[in-house]
């Protein structure tokens, strides 16, 4: 009798959810479980999608009428074995929480995407990359096993030996294979807490590519920053940044994560009017280059700032205003990279596209399923979101397809299904396996609907 009463009440609220790029917004019901049985009750009842920090540029954690399951309260450490370099955490744990635990013990997660409030579950679902994917690969390479909740299969512990297909599908599966409850992660030794950053000036994208190719192998990480202003002689100017992590003292407990204001997809929209424009981008680019030129060529900084350069510089995203930004990330094979960059520059200058900045880094990995991964060069462009910018993204789609590249699914809230189907060789395989696993599409988001998954 009394045992038939469902506890606790699985109440939901409604809220407006925004993709981080500002391109998609939807009002949706959401709940924020802090008990396992609440998660189970939510999954059993309706179409649902898990949400972590909500930092995906595409609407991967809401949309299509799904109940949004905010996993951030499930953020506990379940197991920590420093001697084996292993840690098991719940999916809602933020990277900064994990770093605060492991760094004082001389351990670190090798792959750290760009913002510290991203959750572990989000990292698995998007198979994110860090500062040096050429050396570290992508997030899935740090995942030892996952605890996954699926309404039909129950709660499963999956890894390369148990349910290997499901494990593969879940790493980079955009939350469409079930609710990731927990992950066991492999850590690597952390030598010190100070990063050394060297700056090398460059004049073109091609020089940037040559620079990262030359330095990535010997550095902890290497990437470029390029001015985006679409003017000859200006577009592509910038720096190669080469980072090393020398040995040194480890951070004391409680001093790993500095105080900073969390930027969210909703708070990013604080400025109504965008302050980035062609004139301001050019002014910023020139000022930034001048300011960098006055600093020492080599400087040291806390590792936190090197790992998460935008955590304490959130203004960069605020300046895009309520309308938001458009980011395009394309992973092109090494042999096509030079030609891709040449054509990219030509198209930017021809269209006078509202690019704010560009960046390059190298990648290593296996092209499979819907993972943004492979051997090649990753090129990123940030644009002021406008009709003009969205038209230019279609040019970038065409270039990416022409050079056998991959567009990054979670970086672009508009990416059409046709482009993904043509560029990702594993699209059909993912679709088939996903349909076999979840024919009723229990797990769905705007992203999954748009990509016809």
């Amino acid at each position, binding site marked *: 009798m009394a045992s038939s009463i469902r506890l*606790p009440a699985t109440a939901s609220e409604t809220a407006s959810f925004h993709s981080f790029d500002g391109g998609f917004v939807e009002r949706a019901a959401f709940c924020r*479980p802090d008990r396992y049985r609440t998660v189970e009750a939510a999954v059993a009842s309706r179409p649902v999608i898990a949400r972590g920090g909500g930092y995906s540029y595409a609407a991967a954690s809401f949309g299509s009428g799904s109940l949004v399951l905010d996993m951030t309260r499930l953020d*506990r450490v379940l197991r920590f074995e420093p001697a084996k370099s292993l840690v098991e955490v719940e999916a809602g744990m933020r990277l900064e929480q994990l770093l605060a635990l492991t760094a004082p013990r001389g351990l670190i997660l090798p792959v750290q995407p760009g913002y510290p409030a991203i959750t572990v579950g989000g990292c698995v679902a998007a198979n994110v990359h860090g500062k040096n994917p050429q050396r570290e690969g992508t997030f899935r390479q740090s995942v030892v096993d996952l605890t996954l909740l699926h309404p039909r299969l129950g709660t499963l512990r999956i890894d390369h030996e148990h349910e290997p297909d499901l494990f593969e599908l879940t790493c980079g599966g955009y939350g469409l294979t079930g609710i990731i409850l927990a992950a066991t992660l492999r850590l690597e030794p952390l030598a010190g807490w100070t990063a050394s950053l060297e700056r090398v000036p460059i004049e073109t994208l091609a020089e940037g590519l040559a620079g990262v190719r030359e330095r990535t192998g010997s550095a902890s990480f290497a990437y470029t920053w390029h001015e985006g202003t679409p003017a000859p002689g200006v577009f592509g100017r910038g720096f190669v940044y080469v980072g090393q992590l020398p040995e040194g003292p480890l951070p004391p407990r409680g001093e790993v994560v500095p105080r900073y204001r969390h930027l969210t997809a909703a708070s990013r929209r604080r400025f109504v009017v965008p302050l980035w424009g062609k004139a301001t981008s050019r002014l910023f680019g020139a000022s930034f280059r001048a300011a960098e030129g006055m600093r020492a060529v080599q400087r040291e900084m806390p590792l936190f700032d090197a790992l998460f350069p935008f955590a304490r510089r959130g203004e960069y995203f605020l300046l895009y205003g309520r309308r938001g930004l458009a980011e395009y990330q394309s992973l092109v094979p090494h042999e096509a990279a030079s030609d891709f960059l040449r054509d990219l520059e030509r198209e930017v200058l021809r269209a006078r596209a509202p690019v704010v900045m560009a960046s390059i880094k190298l990648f290593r990995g296996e092209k499979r399923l819907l993972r943004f991964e492979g051997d090649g060069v990753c090129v990123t462009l940030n644009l002021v979101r406008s009709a003009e910018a969205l038209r230019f993204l279609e040019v970038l789609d065409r270039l990416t397809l022409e050079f056998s590249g991959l567009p990054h699914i979670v970086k672009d809230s508009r990416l059409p299904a046709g482009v993904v189907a043509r560029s990702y060789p594993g699209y059909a395989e993912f679709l088939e396996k996903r349909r076999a696993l979840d024919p009723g599409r229990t797990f769905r988001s705007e992203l999954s609907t748009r990509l016809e998954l």
Partner: protein
Amino acid sequence: MTAVVVGASAGLGRELAEALAAAGHDLFVVSSDVRDLEALASDLRIRHGVRVVVLALDLGGELGGLDRLKRAAAELGGPDALLLPIGWTAAADDATLGRDVAERLVRTNFLSVTAVVAELLPELRRRPRASIVGFGSVAASRARGTNMAYSASKRALQTWFEGLRHACAGTTVRVSFYVLGYLDTSLAFGRRTLLPRADPARLAERVVRDLGRLEGVLYYPRAWRLVGAALPLVPFFIFKRLKL
């Protein structure tokens, strides 16, 4: 110090466990689902290096197995503080509430607390200094048609704690009772609230800071003392129109 937290795996209880562990106190945590308890215990042991003993008990059920409380508490050397942030609300707590749900509401919010205190009070009285902390609700100041059994059970609890404080006067046990406004926990989640919900982590820090220092009836957030005092004075012809 060793603290017992009943209702520890979620909401305010979890925040209290976190604040106590962060202050270096060993813990004995009680809740209904062993999975949540194990996860909480691992987390607190790893991050704060404290000892944590868990006990899964469904205190909204038949209230059996309470003797296990005493045995488990003894594993940590006896409790110095007993915190009881246990509570539950039903979705439709009106005049048609079924007997099963009404009984569970009263057991969870009131009888479970009295039973746990009865079990551990002799141990607490043997400690040189000890504290018992209960948690009520401003909702008990004046019942509405949408939270009838909940406010009745919380009012009963507040009255019972008055008696408990009286009973413990002159002993080493200090009794405090927090009357809470809206908190940002699952109890308030999905409900329209007239005033903003307070952060349970901040409340937990305050409770731990004031453990053994303050006693009697305390309000959190403090402004809710005014709300609690004013609500019974509102004429019924106005009160019946209020959407709280």
